[in-house]
């Protein structure tokens, strides 16, 4: 999966005449690649465009600019029929295990639906496949006649996973798949996703605001801010030596379940809220909240020149004019606990 300068802008229409007044730049020039078999984690605050990016990659959203290639093929010129065939290989798992399943359909019908849509099996073979899928995600195959409301949140998320797997996809966008679940259930679903990846050779884009879960599951991680990818790299590098001041601020905000670590940490508390993506700040979009910008005496470059992603370390890219300074800082990184 590759994206090149991908853009998704939503028009803002005036209330009465429906004239275009401007646009929300949800995704604004993102270039990235996901290798077959790897898991790319995507983190960022709400409204940063991570979900929109995930949807644009599998064409649930029409990009307004840039290209998406899947398995080397540009998706843009494809006919709707060709796109539909290709879409079978790309699936999505949603955040809300309550809202994403039709309450009037039985679990069997929910999981069978994509099999029917793509004419993969029918009759006895279809039923057999449904039972197989339920078993694969750790549900009792005898549950096919039950309705979603009879299941807990974690079980419903498993049903969502079974539905996504029904068409034997290669690439799955996991859009906040565990954030609606209880702590003890989150681990179960994370483990399931890891097991399925190994057994079926899946490729994931794992979108979440939970940086700990993303670290756990991802080979590489991308950090988004206001529609731009500000840092991307191997998880071990990004978490151990973040090169973008925003990544450092994000990491420093994540609570750690260890009182001793909590007392020692150096936090940067970001001031204010994320600016509107309809009117992003000029230059580096993060400069209005950047601690490093303040520390360096507000260099003009940050206000005027939009930084591009560049290589800052082995397998690590960041879009910051002063990434080398950021990477040297001790802000946001938690010293490993000493035994």
């Amino acid at each position, binding site marked *: 999966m590759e994206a090149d300068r991908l853009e998704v802008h939503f028009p803002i229409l005036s209330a009465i005449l429906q004239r275009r007044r401007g646009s929300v730049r949800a995704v604004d020039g993102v270039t990235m690649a996901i290798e077959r078999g790897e898991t790319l984690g995507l983190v960022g*605050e*709400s409204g940063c465009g991570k979900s929109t990016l995930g949807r644009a990659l599998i064409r649930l959203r029409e990009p307004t600019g840039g290209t998406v290639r899947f398995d080397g093929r540009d998706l843009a010129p494809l006919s709707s029929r060709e796109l539909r065939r290709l879409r079978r290989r790309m699936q999505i798992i949603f955040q809300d295990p309550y809202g994403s399943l039709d309450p009037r359909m039985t679990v069997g019908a929910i999981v069978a639906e994509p099999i029917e849509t793509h004419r993969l099996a029918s009759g006895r073979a279809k039923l057999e496949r449904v039972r197989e899928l339920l078993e694969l995600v750790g549900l009792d195959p005898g549950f096919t006649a039950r309705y979603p409301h009879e299941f*807990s949140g974690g079980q419903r998320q498993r049903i969502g996973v079974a539905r996504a797997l029904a068409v034997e996809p290669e690439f799955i966008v996991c859009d906040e798949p565990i954030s609606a679940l*209880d*702590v*003890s259930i*989150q*681990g*179960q679903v*994370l*483990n399931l996703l*890891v097991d399925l990846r190994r057994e079926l050779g899946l490729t994931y884009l794992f979108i979440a*605001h939970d*940086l*700990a*879960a993303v*670290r*756990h*599951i991802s080979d590489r991680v991308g950090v988004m801010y206001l529609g731009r990818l500000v840092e991307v790299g191997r998880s*071990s590098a990004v*978490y151990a030596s973040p090169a973008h001041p925003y990544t450092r*601020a*994000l*990491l*420093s*905000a*994540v*609570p*750690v*379940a*260890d*009182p*001793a*670590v*909590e007392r020692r940490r150096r*936090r940067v*508390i*970001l001031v*204010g*809220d*994320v600016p509107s993506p309809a009117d992003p700040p000029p230059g580096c979009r993060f400069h209005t909240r950047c601690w490093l910008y303040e520390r360096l005496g507000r260099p003009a470059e940050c206000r005027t020149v939009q930084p591009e992603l560049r290589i800052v370390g082995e397998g690590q890219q960041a879009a910051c004019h002063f990434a080398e300074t950021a990477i040297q800082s001790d802000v946001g990184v*938690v010293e*490993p*606990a000493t035994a």
Partner: protein
Amino acid sequence: MIPPSQGADGGTVAPLPEMVEVSTPEGARLAAQTVDARQRHARKLLEVRDLSTRFFTPGGVVHAVDEVNLELDYGETLGLVGESGSGKSVTALSIARLVAEPPGRIVGGEVIFDGIDVLGLSNEEMRLLRGRRIGFVFQDPMTSLNPTMPVGRQIAESARAHLGLSRRAAAARAADLLATVGIPRPKDRLGDYPHQFSGGMRQRVMIAIALACQPMLLIADEPTTALDVTVQAQIMELLRSLSREFRTAIILITHDLGIAAGMCQRVSVMYAGRIVETGLVDDIFERPRMPYTRALLDSRPRVDLEPGGRLPTIEGFPPDLVDPDPACRFAPRCAHRREVCLEREPGMTPRPSHGEGHAARCWATEPGGWIP
């Protein structure tokens, strides 16, 4: 800013005589009771003894909160940790007598707040106590703020109703409070409506309303669950500074052990309507004596550690709280369970060798148990 003063117990609390309106008979009784009690003992701000709250539903009687015990010192921050349905929110609502009745009812126990027997108060006295002493902050500020009223008026009304301030004084106080909770240009924002604030700013407004009457206790029920992690850090920093500056005691209800680790002096863990472990924050995290606490800690990936393979998980689900069995409620999911765990429920027993005030509800970690 709210002027704090030194309380009789050594903690800094708001001055007492002015706190309660003595002009009403209820207020006078409340004031008299408070002073008496504080002269008598008043070591703790809050003592909850064997509190039980049930919900009488068509499906049966739900034992949502079952013989819960809690203690809170003046100015202390206590974490009440548990998963959804564990009873932590109902416990907090019961303390403030805010459980909807019916279907809910407090069926037993005692709540002593600043020397006052809360469950013995009349509704009018209770309303006074809540207004003057206990502030609430809920998860979703949008449902607790009035969408049709400017936030300045919402804060001022609370201050007027409970502190008897004049309109002008209340408006000034509203601006002060917005400044206290870190809202930029507070005077300009008094006339704004809740929808004109972002999620984090709305939660700050909620906290300002809760602080309007200088409460001695702030109950914060998952105050940051709906917020981004950077905004969560801002709100937590705000709560920390309130606790430091005004010595406001806080009960912080959260499912996030990380938040409890960074915020609280003591932690009580709830499971299926019961407190299953309580102790100082370091003891709870370093040497938990209840397998559920251990499992909760282990089942979350940590942002500061290299991932180490499969996550240990807690299989199964919490039990149905309609007529629970007289057994350890965690036993069906517990990796250490033995026959006795399914036959008899363990009591909360002190574990003094594992820290001051440490207590747990587990047969396996009792003296002579099978977990050393």
